[in-house]
């Protein structure tokens, strides 16, 4: 059984799924083995390095550039006390370049104000680079602390040998080793050279969390100054000598390809240098076909692309539209092809239920709309046959594999460097842009940045799948849920990317392959351990629309269906929605533990988060006049989150000439009170930022996010019609609380999203009596004020 996390892990290790795979998927999940080594830095300081080997993985990685077996750098401690920490993971706004170095600095007892952070290049010996699935902290929690603790032990050993005292009698405070009895102390910098000559201690114990002084505090982003002064950080800021710029025309219809290219007019645009046809790979998530116009400047490339005349083979999906998809969804809902779970006697239980609901939901395609548009730079050197790829790359290892495949170069001729990423949200789990840049660079024999417009970015995204769902549920006479019959139909990401692991596995509750025997085996969205009669069915339509993961992928839509239905059941039965949720949750013992899951789902943690949100948000207490409160909760990616929102709704009456739709209901979100449980919080400033950002993103996407499909193409143009939430519409206040905890930490880039839209819809229902069952909410007549 493979989880979504396994897939991510493989992507990090450079394992690219074989689109014609045998059905067994990819190699087994790699396990890791690591060794720490030290050396003397050129500055006379100490370098602490670690080499990590992935075991059992069929990686397609470059041969190590340095001496064989030489480990990669993590820490350099200079004689002047400055500490340099290399961060091996890409940064896209979730704070990895701050929170991961914090793990090292904590164990090292380093003075954070003397720490600088630098980017590590892609190197197999970092043991898996790339982040996703809110997993940066949870993946690196052990190794990075071990690196820091080992460095600290080396500094203590250096001091002890210098002072001729037992190491056990030495302690560290910030940047200083101290021997209390002899009243001696030495700053780290003065010990670095000696430490570089010592034997590396093994199995150094980690800090007692009670002694953490950095972890669990608020630490500002390590690149903030560079960001606010406009320094070149992002992929689109890369500049190389003699580089060209290219814009790629792609078939407006999904899965189409160029058949005839007339570049006469394009070539006449001043500055246009080359036209390069991109053939595309057999899997459109690797590389789509297109025609690149190469020019001296971005503007000339864009004008050249506009002037191209391309005749397209539009492929088999040229008549696809929202209407044809809806028709397919409805047929699938009426006769769902696969039953993934069936326990008890669902039909009988529904017939016998005292209170029932029967709800149909629909969800649109949603674009990632990263503010930094699609771009990447590649530099091909014909003399050595090597290529350097620099860009906003989230998955450097799979980027390397895909670039190798697209260019025909050996993987060890492909060098990848991740810049800061101007927003990911799932878009940059794909590495198609790296392949595009590489193919064009190789064709022109030089350096080129490929860049797309906002229109192109919106029309050639890998969208969050459109879906329709039907959920029938019923309460028994004792007020508990006795029947649950959920049908999910959605455009399957696995079908699109030709992944043999089951069309449903990214779309239904959690991730699993094959038919699960018990719903409580599922790792997310709903653990109905206390629902005796439950059925889950799935169906996927035939579609050409490109799909991919969008921040907290299917959990966003599934949580909306589940959390609004539970709320509605409670309202119908005149029960407290809090109590109804509590009866569903069960206890820790109800949930079987996965063998390898270090942060298994624990209903008692969910219960505490729910109750704390209820308490802090005043849920159940009277709201200010004209307002109502709504509640939802969710567990994803090992973390727990609940929101209580306070909203009011006004009816829009337009004056003449004013834009908008008369009778549209305008929602003001006065306050969101949120509670998260991420285990041990690492950086409270970033956790709070993810809570705020996740809430705002979730609200914006719920009210506005929709990429309509017509004539086989995405019709969104720009931020004029593809609306993004703005400051005026964002909640007026957001309170973020985190449960104090010493449990192993989990991530929070995604968990705040799934519960926010249902919390808002549940609050709206209290005020208007109307249950929203469609996204975007705009389609139900609701907008943000």
């Amino acid at each position, binding site marked *: 059984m493979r989880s979504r996390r396994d897939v991510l892990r493989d992507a990090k290790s450079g394992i690219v799924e074989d689109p014609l795979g045998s059905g067994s998927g990819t190699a087994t999940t790699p396990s890791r083995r690591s060794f720490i080594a030290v050396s003397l830095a050129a500055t006379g300081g100490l370098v602490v390095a670690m080499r990590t080997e992935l075991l059992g993985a069929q990686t397609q990685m470059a041969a190590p550039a340095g001496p064989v077996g030489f480990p990669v750098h993590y820490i350099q401690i200079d004689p002047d006390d400055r500490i340099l920490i290399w961060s091996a993971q890409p940064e896209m*706004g979730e704070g990895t370049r701050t929170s991961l170095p914090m793990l090292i600095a904590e164990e090292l007892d380093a003075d954070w104000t003397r720490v600088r952070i630098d980017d590590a290049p892609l190197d197999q010996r970092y043991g898996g680079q790339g982040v996703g699935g809110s997993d940066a902290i949870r993946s690196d929690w052990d190794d990075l602390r071990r690196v820091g603790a080992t460095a600290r032990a080396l500094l203590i050993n250096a001091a002890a040998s210098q002072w001729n005292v037992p190491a056990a009698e030495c302690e560290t405070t910030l940047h200083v080793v101290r021997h209390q009895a002899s009243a001696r102390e030495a700053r780290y910098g003065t010990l670095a050279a000696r430490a570089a000559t010592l034997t590396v201690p093994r199995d150094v114990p980690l800090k007692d969390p009670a002694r953490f002084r950095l972890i669990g505090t608020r630490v*500002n982003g390590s690149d*903030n100054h560079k960001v606010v*002064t406009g320094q070149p*950080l*992002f992929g689109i800021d890369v*500049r190389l000598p003699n580089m060209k710029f290219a814009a790629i025309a792609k078939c407006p219809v999904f899965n189409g390809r160029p058949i005839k290219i007339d570049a006469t007019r394009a070539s006449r645009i001043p500055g246009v240098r080359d036209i390069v046809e991109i053939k595309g790979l057999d899997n459109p998530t690797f590389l789509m076909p297109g025609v690149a116009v190469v020019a001296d400047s971005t503007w000339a490339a864009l004008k050249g692309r506009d002037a191209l005349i391309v005749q397209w083979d539009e492929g088999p999906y040229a008549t696809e539209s929202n209407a044809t998809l809806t028709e397919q969804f409805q047929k699938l809902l009426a006769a769902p092809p696969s039953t993934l779970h069936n326990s008890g006697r669902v039909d009988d239980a529904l017939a016998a239920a005292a209170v029932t609901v029967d709800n149909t939901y629909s969800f649109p395609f949603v674009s990632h709309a990263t503010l930094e548009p699609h771009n990447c730079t590649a530099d091909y050197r014909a003399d050595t046959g090597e290529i350097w790829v620099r860009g906003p790359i989230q998955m450097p290892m799979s980027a390397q594999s895909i670039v190798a495949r697209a260019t025909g170069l050996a993987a060890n001729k492909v060098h990848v460097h991740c810049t800061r990423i101007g927003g990911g949200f799932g878009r940059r789990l794909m590495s198609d842009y790296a392949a595009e840049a590489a193919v064009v660079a190789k064709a022109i024999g030089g350096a080129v940045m490929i860049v797309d417009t*906002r229109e192109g970015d919106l029309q050639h995204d890998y969208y969050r799948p459109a879906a329709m769902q039907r959920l029938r549920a019923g309460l028994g006479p004792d007020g508990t849920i006795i029947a649950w019959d959920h049908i999910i139909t959605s455009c399957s990401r696995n079908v699109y990317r030709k992944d043999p692991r089951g069309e449903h596995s990214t779309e239904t509750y959690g991730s699993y392959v094959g038919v699960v025997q018990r719903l409580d085996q599922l790792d997310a969205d709903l653990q109905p351990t206390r629902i005796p009669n439950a059925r889950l069915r799935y169906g996927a339509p035939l579609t050409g629309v490109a799909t991919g993961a969008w921040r907290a992928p299917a959990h966003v839509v599934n949580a909306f269906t589940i959390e609004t239905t539970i709320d509605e059941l409670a309202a119908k039965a005149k029960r407290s929605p809090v109590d109804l949720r509590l009866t569903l949750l069960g206890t820790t013992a109800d949930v079987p533990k996965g063998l390898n899951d270090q942060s298994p789902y624990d209903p008692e943690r969910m219960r505490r988060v729910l109750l704390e949100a209820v308490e802090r948000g005043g849920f159940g207490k009277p709201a200010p006049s004209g307002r109502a409160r709504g509640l939802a909760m969710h567990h994803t990616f090992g973390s727990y989150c609940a929101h209580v929102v306070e909203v009011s709704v006004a009816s829009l009456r337009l004056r003449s000439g004013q834009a908008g739709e008369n009778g549209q209901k305008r929602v003001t979100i006065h306050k969101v009170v949120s509670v998260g449980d991420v285990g041990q919080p690492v950086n409270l400033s970033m956790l709070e*930022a993810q809570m705020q950002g996740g809430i705002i993103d979730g609200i914006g996407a719920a009210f506005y996010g929709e990429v309509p499909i017509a004539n086989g193409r995405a019709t969104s143009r720009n931020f004029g019609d593809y609306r993004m939430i703005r*400051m005026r519409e964002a909640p007026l206040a957001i309170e973020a609380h985190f449960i104090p905890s010493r449990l192993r930490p989990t991530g929070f880039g995604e968990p705040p999203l799934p519960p926010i839209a249902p919390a808002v819809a549940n609050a709206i229902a209290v005020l208007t009596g109307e249950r929203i069952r469609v996204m975007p909410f705009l389609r139900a007549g609701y907008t943000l004020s």
Partner: protein
Amino acid sequence: MAVSLTVNNRAIQLDVDPETPLLWVLRDHLNLVGTKFGCGGGFCGACTVHLDGVATRSCSTPIGKAAGRRITTIEGLSANGDHPAQRAWEELDVPQCGYCQAGQIMSCAALLARTPNPRDEEIVAAMNGNICRCGTYVRIKDAVKRAAAMTSPANVMRSE
């Protein structure tokens, strides 16, 4: 066409198609990449610069219209990266991905130049044209207020 402009107090002459948006002249010709491309249509504000002191979307300003005028980009907002907006943004840890923040800061700086103590509604009106895809609006609003407090006459008097 030969165009003369002043960018960050530097006189610039260049030969460029007058229809080229100021944004691409800054980024591709002058290598001032702090000004960001977000939408190309004036919807998102990532490309905001000051044109004679007024917050302007450089993506929809043809270079011909910027000729002879005074342009300030994020790189020239302050000598040492210490404009009150920049300091406030750092202090309140505003950036997530950070891509929009140069534009946000330029909008904030233009607001504070004409309205040193903006009311909430004035902040929202001035900043609403700048999209933050990561949703840092809560901290942006706080940072505008913090920057205003750093620059207000009352604050200066207190610190003297």
